[in-house]
């Protein structure tokens, strides 16, 4: 396969992509592998082995910019007497992640059309802060977390305990079903992913009354439509010790890498370093800080082994995002093929 990418003290020796190799399907199938390292509700780490960097990158790019998701797009503000200006409020609401699965919705064809059950979700929020609420809140917080009040008043604009504020969180946003939506969805399946996203703070007498319309969109239009926090890959690192590193140097070497990369073994009372787990290495290159390691260590990256991470915001499982992305790529490839074929016919 490809030559490794060697990391020198001041630069990376990049041979990758400079040579053109003919594509061989059988070889690809033989080499291609996906190992799932870690999978949780929101995060997935997997190894993508035996693919070209272009493929890994296109996957990343598509996840970041083209996998759609639902986000609040329009906010009708009926009342907003809080200190948060209308535009800021709307901007903040737009960035709140929604649990709604975008695959169950259609893209809105006309921006100005009436929202319907297939392309939109509607949310409401109506909140008014009264002195009574606040007193109750203060009391409750004081009872449950005596320190809380102190902390709260610290972050308040006016440091004074009578000046408590009522905090509006994303949990105060309530879904209101459109059409037959209430048969299909539940508050849990389309509501807020996080309950504790700060939206605004209210003083007694202030109120916010809103109606929000969420639509399906792609992150290219606006980052709020991203279905991931981020998705990225790194190339599998490789460490080679070219010489025995013993004693204090071995300890030093160990400290130059994240925990678990370099292991120490004792031979006849002398500590000798060996590479335990390359995967955890993170290109910090701190070995170059010490003269004694010059020419003793070779840091490199394996060019066709990608450690890929997808961090979902929670609306879709990371694996679904992966498949969505693959589907989009396939669609793009088909599209390109079609154009190419059509052109040859002409």
């Amino acid at each position: 396969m490809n030559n490794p990418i060697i990391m020198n003290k001041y630069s990376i020796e990049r041979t990758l992509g400079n040579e053109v190799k003919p594509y061989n399907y059988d070889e690809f199938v033989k080499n291609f592998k996906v190992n799932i390292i870690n999978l949780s509700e929101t995060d997935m780490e997997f190894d993508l082995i035996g693919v070209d960097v272009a493929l890994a990158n296109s996957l990343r790019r598509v996840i970041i910019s083209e996998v759609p998701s639902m986000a609040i797009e329009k906010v009708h503000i009926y009342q907003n007497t809080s200190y948060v200006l209308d535009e800021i409020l709307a901007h903040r609401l737009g960035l709140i992640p929604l649990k709604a699965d975008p695959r169950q919705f259609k893209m809105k064809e006309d921006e100005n059309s009436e929202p319907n059950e297939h392309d939109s979700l509607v949310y409401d929020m109506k909140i008014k802060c009264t002195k009574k609420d606040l007193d109750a809140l203060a009391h409750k917080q004081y009872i449950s977390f005596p320190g809380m009040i102190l902390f709260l008043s610290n972050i308040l604009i006016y440091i004074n305990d009578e000046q408590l504020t009522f905090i509006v969180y994303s949990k105060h946003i309530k879904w209101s079903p459109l059409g037959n939506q209430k048969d299909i969805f539940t508050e849990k399946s389309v509501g807020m992913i996080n309950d504790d996203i700060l939206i605004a703070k209210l003083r007694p007498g202030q109120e916010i009354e809103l109606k929000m319309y969420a639509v399906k969109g792609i992150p290219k239009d606006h980052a709020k439509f991203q279905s991931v926090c981020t998705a990225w890959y790194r190339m599998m690192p490789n460490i080679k010790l070219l010489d025995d590193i013993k004693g204090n140097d071995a300890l030093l070497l160990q400290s130059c890498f994240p925990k678990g990369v370099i292991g120490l073994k004792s031979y006849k009372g002398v500590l000798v370093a060996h590479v335990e787990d390359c995967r955890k290495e993170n290109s910090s290159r701190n070995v170059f800080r010490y003269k004694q390691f010059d020419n003793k260590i070779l840091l490199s990256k394996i060019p066709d082994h990608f450690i890929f991470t997808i961090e979902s915001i929670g609306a879709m499982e990371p694996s679904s995002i992966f498949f969505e992305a693959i589907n989009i790529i396939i669609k793009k490839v088909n599209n390109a093929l079609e154009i190419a074929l059509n052109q040859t016919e002409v």
Partner: protein
Amino acid sequence: MVEVLRDKEFLVREYLETRGLYSHHINSFNAFIDCELKKIVQQNHAVRSDADPNFYLHFKNVTVGHPQVDDGFNVTRNVTPQECRLRDLTYCAPIYVDIEYVKSGMKYLRKGFIIGRLPIMLRSNRCCLYQKSDAELAKMKECIYDSGGYFIVKGTEKVILMQEQPAKNKILVEKDSNGVPTVQVMSSTVDKKSKTNIIFKKNLIYVCHNALEENIPFVVFMKALGVCSDQLILQMVGTEFAIMNQMYPCFLECSKLNIFTQKQALRFIGDRIKKMGFSSEDYDNRVITEVHDFLSTVILAHIPVTNTNYHMKAIYTSVMVRRLIFSLSNPDLFDSKDYYGNKCLDLPGSFLSLLFDDTFKRFIFELKSVADKNIPKVKATPFDIIKYIRTDTITNALVFAIQTGNWSIKRFRMERHGVTQVLTRLSYLSAIGMMTRVNSQFEKSRKVSGPRSLQPSQFGMLCPSDTPEGEACGLIKNISLLAHVTTESEDDDAVLKLALNLGVEPVGLFSVEELHEEYMYLIIFNGNIIGSTNKCIEFVNKFRICRRKGMFSKFISIYISERHKCIYINSGDGRLCRPYIVVENGQPLLTNAHIDNLKRGYCTFQDFIDESLIEFIDVDEENNSLIAYCEEKIVPETTHMEIAPFSILGICASVIPYPHHNQSPRNTYQCAMGKQAIGTIALNYLHRIDTLQYNLWYTHIPMVHSKAVPMINFDKLPAGQNATIAVMSYSGYDIEDAIILNKASVDRGFGRGGTFRNSKCFLRHYPNQMMDSIQGPIIDNATKKPIYKHRALDNDGIAAIGQPVFDKQVTINKATPKTVTVEDVGGDRGFKETPMYYKGYDPSYVDKVMITSNSDCFLIKENFRQPRRPEIGDKFSSRHGQKGVVGLIVNQEDMPFNEVGICPDLIMNPHGFPSRMTVGKLIELLAGKAGLLEGKFQDGSAFGGATVADISDELHKHNYNYLGKDVLYCGIDGRPMEAYIYSGPVFYQRLKHMVADKIHARSRGPRVLLTRQPTEGRSKDGGLRMGEMERDCLIAYGASMLIIERLMLSSDVVEMDVCKLCGLFSYSGWCHMCQKSNSVCRIKMPYACKLLFQELQAMSIVPKISLKKYCD
């Protein structure tokens, strides 16, 4: 070994917290109200009349109340500054006096009589914000971090800037512009200012003064002062050989003039005083009294003279001459005007007292003339002076002066403009930066380097970085964090008495020769010689001990000048001074225990000053001190130690992290740019209605900030955001300092901000009982909706809150009566529309509407806000003078990313570094990165802060590259980049220059009425000028038709008839000159040309146009 003091910066913090950052303004205003005002009224307390010797009016006991507003119907109530800002009122308080006067032969007494209103400085002791808690301030809708120190006049915030002036009553030896050695004294007392020069010209010494037509030989002058013996004169000046040599020709000249007695000398001077038009009778005596008057009150006016005893003046003059003569042989003895001890700062208090003194005198004069005029008249009611007291004389004079900044005081022939400036509320930093500004009186256009350059004596007093570039460079300065400006001291008498007790002997007790003995030191107190001592060091030490014991004000300075053989004691106002830790016997008096007590709140900074652990040293006294920079540098001779080295910087420079690693001009640039950075201007920004206000939605506390940042509250009202930057080139849209932004970051709120703009209108009452009215929107009949123009209006005809307003939409639908004058009562009752329009390419949203009344009319103010998302061309800057515009906004997938998936928010081209040498920015990035990993703010204080070695270790500890360089993968092709990229967080400021405010293009549009050429400027939708240089290009290229098109056809073309025969304009095809029509041709010409010809004709100059066929 000296114990190292920990957390010394805490002292600075405590100092700034207890004293306030801008106390010099407020202190001086308080001093004005508490002392100066009383003094002025006391000095001019009586009004007497020439008509009635028994009549009098006495002003007693003047006080100033609290700011009030007149609600009409004689109802007044206390007012808050915020209300004044919003309602365009003046924040002023009544001046009360107790008056005693005579009415029909009886004595009357009235207490608390208002003679005028005085604008009140915010946070002064008369202001309603004085000593209020944060919660109380919040209730008054006032920002708790606001500096105060300014006035509110008719709704605008005005600052009286500090003015730098040459110090008064100091002897300065200099060479004048012609190279003539001169010794100069600017005398200044409460009611006299004069300038006296003694010059050395053609080997002779002369006394010059403006009131003299001719220079007076020095010896003649001395004789006029009553020192008639030549021997005595010489002894007064000194009997050193050098002096005798120089004095010889002077004596010779005097004897040539035949002047031997005082009377002869007085007459000699009398003949040379300007404006002496006496009749011949008794001429002699009148001249003599006039000269006596001149000698005692005009020349060297600051030296008091009693009963024509000029002894002190003679000694003072001889000291001046002595210095002049010594300087001739030793150029080192020349003084420098730029030395900061020879400067003083005029504060608002002294400006106001000058002004008030003048207006009060005028006020009294007016009352006197009223009394003179009215007392002789026989009237039914007895003359009552208080009916004639007009409060607006004083009120208007003060308000007008502060409003316009024109300070004209006729008595001193003072005519100054631009004394006050509008407080710039662009950002918090610009507002507080203005309170520390020092303006200099030098002419800006002159190319002088002396007053502009940084003087060593300014160290620690003035910020070495914060000065504008260009013409005002070095003339406008800013005082440092710890610098203090003294106010008038009350202890002058105590100091005088003490000096005498400490062994100063009055000059009169010595024979004049003794004065100049080697061991004798003259003692000069505020420019006056008070005596002499032969135990100079002992005296000074004792004096300082007394000061430390608190026997008089801590701000009175004393210092020995070996050069002058003088001890100077100064108690005057406007001196810059600075606190230092006192060091005795190689040990600082302040210990860690003291600082701990301070931290725990057991004591205050003031306690340390009272106990003289910390002492204020002014510029002059610094010359007698050995000040250690830190504990290690203390040697046995050390007298003081620096509190914190970063305190030499001013407010704006304190925001820069690691300024000591930057090239110095970069810090200067940042000082200018920090004031343009948008952020939160004050906590009450949503309650303000300013003409223009910028704000940033999501401000951050800088990751790397200096110790001074929390002290100036920049962390509570920051202006900028921590952007993750990558220093690399990208796409070519980043050349010439352009920056690349990540679109996703912008979507998520990076650099987002907005503007607030106001519009206001008055609803006036007119003499014919009519009044402006506001009319509701016009409803379109077909759609039943308001017409486009009125779409933003509410039913009441004022824009509705929350509505978007587009270009040319009406925001207040005002209508004015067609007739307004008294004669028209009962005339046309119709109205014409005079609405307020919104103007702008982009829509705004109505934020606030305020309806209120203001003296005689209704006032409506509206505030519009406009969100501003960063776009290509918007200006950003880091805190290191590295500004750049957005060159490209890139999608997140195209941005590079690192091994943990972080994309930079902003990409900066590395070419910005080598020539700018802003190493501070590199360290800021590194420290910021370490701070993120550690989860704490990093310290980047000047002359301190976290070191690069420590930061590198911290990065290493968190398994990041110790150099701060990461492996970045290209977002476009996905490969790791060959170079490691320096990336991390840097605090970026968004500057107020935005494309949305500047974008301008026009194809057709309005024209100027007079010339028919396109209007100029964006605000008038003007054309883009093809100027001379552009024209030159076209000429050089030979595109003559293009020139015709640009300069005429697309501009002000007009078709005119011209007569071939006479060459004059014809009209309607008929030449009135030739009475013909067949000679008339029609030509195209620029309207401006036609206009010129007609104007010339109007001046009886006949321009003729000779026509030729184009083809000939």
